[in-house]
């Protein structure tokens, strides 16, 4: 057809060029410079911390990844998930079972003795396996999400990890074919999967000093965080990210411009699940306290971890990805500092922090800081404040508004 549009010419080539130029990091906005500085500081942290503190902080890196996982689907597409630990558990158990119940017995049966390289390869295969199992879980939740409206879907996500928890007990002794030695019931898998680096024999690389162990674990976890950041940042900053947020706003509008909302919705779930599963899988081989048990992967009360990641993402700012990093820092601060004085109140300070953030910083720390920074810069340039930043409603507010509408529809409130 002869229709002329501005999209003509070699668009693909121009796009690649534009992305390359961005990757050269020449004209960075201030907030991006600060972000890179922040990640740089994270990388330097082991220089400052004692091994024990460092181990505590390594866990925060996993919290960041878990919150990013939640943000991809709930912060962007507005499909609130209340049970993201479902995916974490699938990833964590997935890699442990793959390595200890499938790969290691198989290689033993073949009479292969694993050196450091061999063990590393087995661990990596396990992580891939765990990630795939979690991604499959993403399909399992994503498909009903096509038919279920917000609150109903949230119920499904709330129940899914509880069912999984129960199935760990039912198949505690043996799950035919998939997990020949069983899933360990409430106490989890006692047979720990091998670590990348560790003290003792169950590791690819054996070290003898505590601080080397801690630093190595930190950097492997940090590498995983960088991978997660790169993947999720890439997807959400591309056109796919704006399709995600458009789904949160209005699926019909998405459909009317030739985009298949079902495809993007399932993708959001699968990506989120894969990221969460990957993080949990790496944790089992590189994290501190890396035991594949229900307390680690679901949280002490079966749903604690699912709620924690929501608090983290909301504090930092929903629908931003980087907000999860900042949110996790605040969360860890509240958890360790305030929790240290009155340990009996343990979950309270963190949940309180979430409440405070929702009330006074509903956009989250990162978007608020960005807004404040822009105003400050504009003020320094002598511009009129109101011209600079139009108040755009935040992801959290849009999601909550949608949710309220849907609940009002269900219960027949004034919304009709």
């Amino acid at each position, binding site marked *: *057809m*002869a*229709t*002329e*549009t*501005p*999209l003509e010419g070699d*668009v693909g080539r*121009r*796009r*690649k*060029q*534009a*992305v390359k*130029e*961005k990757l050269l990091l020449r004209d960075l906005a201030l907030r991006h410079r600060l972000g890179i500085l922040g990640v740089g500081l994270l990388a330097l942290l082991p220089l400052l911390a004692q091994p024990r503190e460092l181990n505590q902080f390594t866990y925060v890196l996993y919290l960041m990844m878990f919150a990013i996982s939640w943000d991809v689907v709930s912060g962007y597409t507005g499909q609130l998930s209340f049970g993201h630990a479902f995916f974490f558990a699938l990833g964590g158990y997935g890699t442990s079972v793959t390595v200890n119940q499938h790969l290691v017995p198989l290689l033993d049966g073949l009479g292969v003795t694993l050196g450091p390289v061999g063990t590393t390869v087995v661990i990596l295969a396990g992580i891939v396996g765990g990630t795939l199992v979690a991604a499959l879980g993403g399909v399992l939740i994503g498909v009903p999400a096509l038919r279920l409206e917000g609150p109903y879907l949230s119920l499904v996500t709330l129940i899914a990890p509880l069912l999984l928890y129960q199935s760990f007990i039912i198949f505690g002794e043996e799950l035919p074919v998939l997990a020949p030695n069983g899933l360990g019931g409430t106490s989890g898998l006692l047979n720990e999967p091998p670590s990348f680096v560790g003290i003792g024999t169950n590791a690819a690389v054996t070290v003898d000093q505590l601080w080397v162990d801690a630093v190595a674990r930190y950097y492997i976890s940090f590498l995983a965080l960088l991978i997660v950041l790169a993947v999720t940042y*890439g*997807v959400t*900053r*591309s*056109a*796919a*990210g*704006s*399709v995600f*947020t*458009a789904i*949160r*706003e*209005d699926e*019909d*509008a*998405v*459909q*009317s*411009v*030739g*985009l*298949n*909302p079902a*495809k*993007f919705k399932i*993708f959001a779930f699968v990506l989120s699940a894969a990221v969460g599963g990957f993080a949990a899988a790496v944790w089992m081989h590189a994290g501190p306290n890396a035991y594949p048990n229900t307390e680690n992967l679901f949280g002490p009360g079966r749903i604690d971890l699912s709620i924690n990641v929501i608090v983290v993402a909301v504090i930092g700012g929903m629908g931003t990805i980087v907000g999860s990093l900042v949110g996790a820092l605040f969360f860890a601060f509240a958890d360790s500092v305030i929790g240290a004085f009155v340990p009996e109140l343990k979950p309270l300070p963190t949940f309180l922090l979430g409440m405070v953030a929702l009330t006074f910083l509903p956009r989250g720390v990162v978007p608020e800081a960005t807004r404040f920074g822009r105003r400050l810069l504009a003020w320094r340039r002598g511009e009129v404040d109101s011209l600079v930043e*139009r108040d*755009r*409603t935040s992801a959290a507010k*849009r999601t909550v508004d949608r949710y309220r509408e849907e609940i009002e529809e269900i219960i027949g409130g004034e919304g009709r």
Partner: protein
Amino acid sequence: MSAEPETGARADRERSYGPDDGILVADDLRKEFGGLVAVDDLSFAVQEQEILGFIGPNGAGKSTTFNCVTGTYPPTDGTVYFKGEDVTGIPAHDMVKEGMSRTFQEFAPLEDRPVVKNVELALAPDELFTLSGMGGETEQLAREICRRVGLGEVMDQTPSELPHAGMLKLELGRAIATQPDVMLVDEPFAGLSADEVQELTEVMESLRQHGMTLIVVDHNMRGLLNLIDRAFVIQFGSKIAEGTPEEITDDPEVQEAYLGGEEI
């Protein structure tokens, strides 16, 4: 289906169209909701680079017809051909990809982002992994489209700040951004001033000059006379007249249909 012999009951219906009778062809299109027949064996063909007025009183079945054509819901019976292919009942988003887009009467802009980003969404490829949107490339295109439809001054505002005419232009911009070959425009002139009608007419005329085919749906021909080449009038889901705007306004059956209501 066109091979079906003419029965007495159907003797008076329109001749059947084949896939190659136009860029967009509806053949014996029928839509029933329960027992209610909203579209009654309607057949029409739209030629390439034509601007067709699709006219009918309120409730005549215009919207239903085009909801069937664009895949919002499947027709009960009949066939839709687009560019010579049978596209009956394919999903709406696939129809857009085939090259047919539409504007909506009831606007549903994305309120969380500025006008230009609304248009930019329509430029997003239906792909999960894409470089699109990362280099500011699509934003430039979206800005160009905004300027072309007359939103140049307001494209950084949010849709809620736009006046009525601005919303119509935004709908038009979004539809254009999907690179359609055929564009269906639903009641573009409702509630517009004469100047605004003139401005939109010029935009649509220029789109046609660039090779686009347009179907303008409206309940009367006021404002359409300078724009359309041909009008197609329906009532109760069936065609009652077809011809140039002048022929239509003089048609007794059309005048009958509008008696007691609005003028054609």
